[in-house]
């Protein structure tokens, strides 16, 4: 009996010792969906690279990275997401949280993380409120940082920058002074500010807004909307779509042989599977994106190539969990500690060269927006391939194409 107790105590001690040798990072994402798969894949690549190199140097002590896979199921259920965060904090006793995708869910997850004073590096959600919380109540929310993408307002700045360049091409090609734009935005919290900004800014950019259509994010049929857009004579369909409606739009625009070109945010369009999902109909659909084989940073091309080799497909923006883990490694090694408060101060000052961006953070812990650094890239589907075309000054960009008229 005594021997059993001693053995159990020894095992427990060893277990605690073993735990202390690792830095536990929870990867939060909807793991049955592409967003979660990329969260996990990016994190795996970072973990393997770090552990292969001997781990993270914490004040002279080498610690391995241990990932905890937390399926938030947030696309279907916000409570599932908060439960997942509770679980990894209380049961798995993780040191850091990385991931999240759906803004509504991430806002709820942020609360749970802040209750426990855990550093939460957001990779996926764009809503401004996440950063606004930091500004309004710094002591509570300072543990939150947004690694990807930029906040919704900055996404809009990128969208308008690219839209301006597409508008110029249309003016030249079609010999029209005022390109016509149809706004096609899913009805969701994150699109509200973008739609208002588009309605206000486009006339100032000498573009005519022919109408605003707002289907549901899960609509599988947008033929009525596209029919009306066709009828309005739009040259550009300015999309703000994160849900499966993005596939319906891509596919049905192709089926209708529309002459308008789609540009904007189409999260489904960022995925490698988009071409297959649209049955090859999404020719010329373009979207904001993060990864392509272009030299955004010196690390971009090697990362994208390694990702493709390992997972047989290109990464989407939620694979920036890689950058989040590498950021943690950088500040932990710099500070020689995993103490959250010290790391927060370090992240606030650092400029981190990642695979998708060269990142630094503002007082809201949002990314400082800059073209060529954090603004991302624009890609267009051309004959089954995602072709990057903006910002044009980055090496590797190719021409943007218009449907034949």
């Amino acid at each position, binding site marked *: 009996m005594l021997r059993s107790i001693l053995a159990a105590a020894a095992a427990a001690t060893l277990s605690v010792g073993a735990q202390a040798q690792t830095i536990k990072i929870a990867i939060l994402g909807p793991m049955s969906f592409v967003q979660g798969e990329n969260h996990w894949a990016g994190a795996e690549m970072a973990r393997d690279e770090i552990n292969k190199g001997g781990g993270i140097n914490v004040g002279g002590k080498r610690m391995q990275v241990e990932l905890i896979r937390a399926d938030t199921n947030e696309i279907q259920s916000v409570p599932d997401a908060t439960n997942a965060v509770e679980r990894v904090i209380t049961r798995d006793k993780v040191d850091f949280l990385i991931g999240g995708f759906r803004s509504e869910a991430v806002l709820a997850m942020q609360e749970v993380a802040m209750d426990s004073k855990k550093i939460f590096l957001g990779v996926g959600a764009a809503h401004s409120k996440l950063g606004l919380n930091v500004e309004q109540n710094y002591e509570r929310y300072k543990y939150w940082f947004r690694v990807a993408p930029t906040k919704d307002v900055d996404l809009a700045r990128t969208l308008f920058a690219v839209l301006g360049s597409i508008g110029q091409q249309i003016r030249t090609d079609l010999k029209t002074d005022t390109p016509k734009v149809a706004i096609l935005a899913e009805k969701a919290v994150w699109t509200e500010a973008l739609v208002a900004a588009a309605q206000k800014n486009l006339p100032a950019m000498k573009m005519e807004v022919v109408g605003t259509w*707002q289907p*549901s994010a*899960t*609509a599988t049929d947008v033929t009525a909307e596209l*029919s009306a857009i066709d009828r309005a004579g739009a040259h550009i369909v300015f999309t703000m779509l994160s849900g499966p409606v993005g*596939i*319906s739009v891509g*596919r049905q625009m192709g*089926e209708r042989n529309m002459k308008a070109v789609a540009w904007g945010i189409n999260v489904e369009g960022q995925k490698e599977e988009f071409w297959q999902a649209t*049955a090859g109909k999404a020719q010329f659909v373009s979207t904001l994106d993060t990864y392509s084989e272009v030299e955004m940073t010196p690390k971009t091309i090697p990362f994208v190539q390694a990702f493709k080799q390992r997972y047989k497909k290109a990464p989407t923006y939620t694979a920036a969990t890689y950058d989040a883990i590498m950021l943690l490694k950088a500040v932990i090694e710099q500070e020689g500690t995993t103490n959250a408060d010290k790391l927060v101060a370090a992240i606030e000052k650092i400029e981190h060269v990642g695979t998708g961006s060269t990142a630094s953070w503002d007082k809201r812990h949002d990314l400082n927006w800059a073209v060529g650094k954090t603004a991302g890239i624009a890609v267009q589907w051309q004959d089954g391939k995602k072709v990057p075309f903006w910002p044009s000054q980055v090496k590797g960009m190719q021409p943007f194409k218009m449907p034949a008229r």
Partner: protein
Amino acid sequence: MLQDILVTGLVNGGVYALLAIGFSLIFGVARIVNIAHTAFYMLAAYCFYTLLTKTGLGFLLSGVIAVAAVTLFSMLCYRLVIEPVREHESAVLISTIALALIFQEVMLYLFGGHFLGIPSTIEGGIRILGVSVPYQRVLILVVAAIMLGAVWLLLYRTRLGLAIRATANDLEVASLMGMNVNRVAMATVAISVGLAAIAGVIATPVVSVHPHLWLDPLVIMLAIVVLGGLGSLKGSLIGALVIAYVEAITVFALPAGAYLKGAVALLIMVVVLLFRPEGLFGVAFEEER
């Protein structure tokens, strides 16, 4: 704009009608509120997708096998899950919800949350009244019309149809007349799910296949059958067209409120029910068995 509404409403009404008539049929005959009806539609879409992309059987053969397999499977589900609790309407309701959720989670497990697409059966399109309509949507409309005609023939020109109508009219008397009402109910389930499976197969090329594919059409289908009158086939057909046209009108008249098209359709249903609680063509409740 009028021609856009006319064409869009008609094409979308086709798939809605296929789903709603099957649902209405099984309710009318066996008083089964089969919430899993659109889940069978989703299963047929997955089955068709898998056969087409993994085995290379071709559109026709893949479609036929998918419809047959899902129909047989629905009969098995009826025997194992629904028949034992058929006398208790609430238990049937809950059982079919459970079935639908099980199908959803199994598909999520097997295929993940990916949106899967397949090529159109027929590429290209035509212009009808100046509106561009892909051939695939024309095909949907034609198949829907043929299927609805076939159902009408089956119900009004065959002995099985007579038995189904008799059972729908009065289950107890049909039973006393020597009809095997359980077998009739089973046949009705097969016909009903067969229609849903056909809808799944012909609609797959215009929608993406995913585990939640069953949810959107479920709400619309329930609205249609309640609007048309539960159990009334004519009501379902007309209800499908009404809802499809209301959706189209909403999108064209209120572009920024396109997301409201489902809500507007449901509102129309509520308004109709205020004046005709039995629906447009339903049997008044006090006259029901």
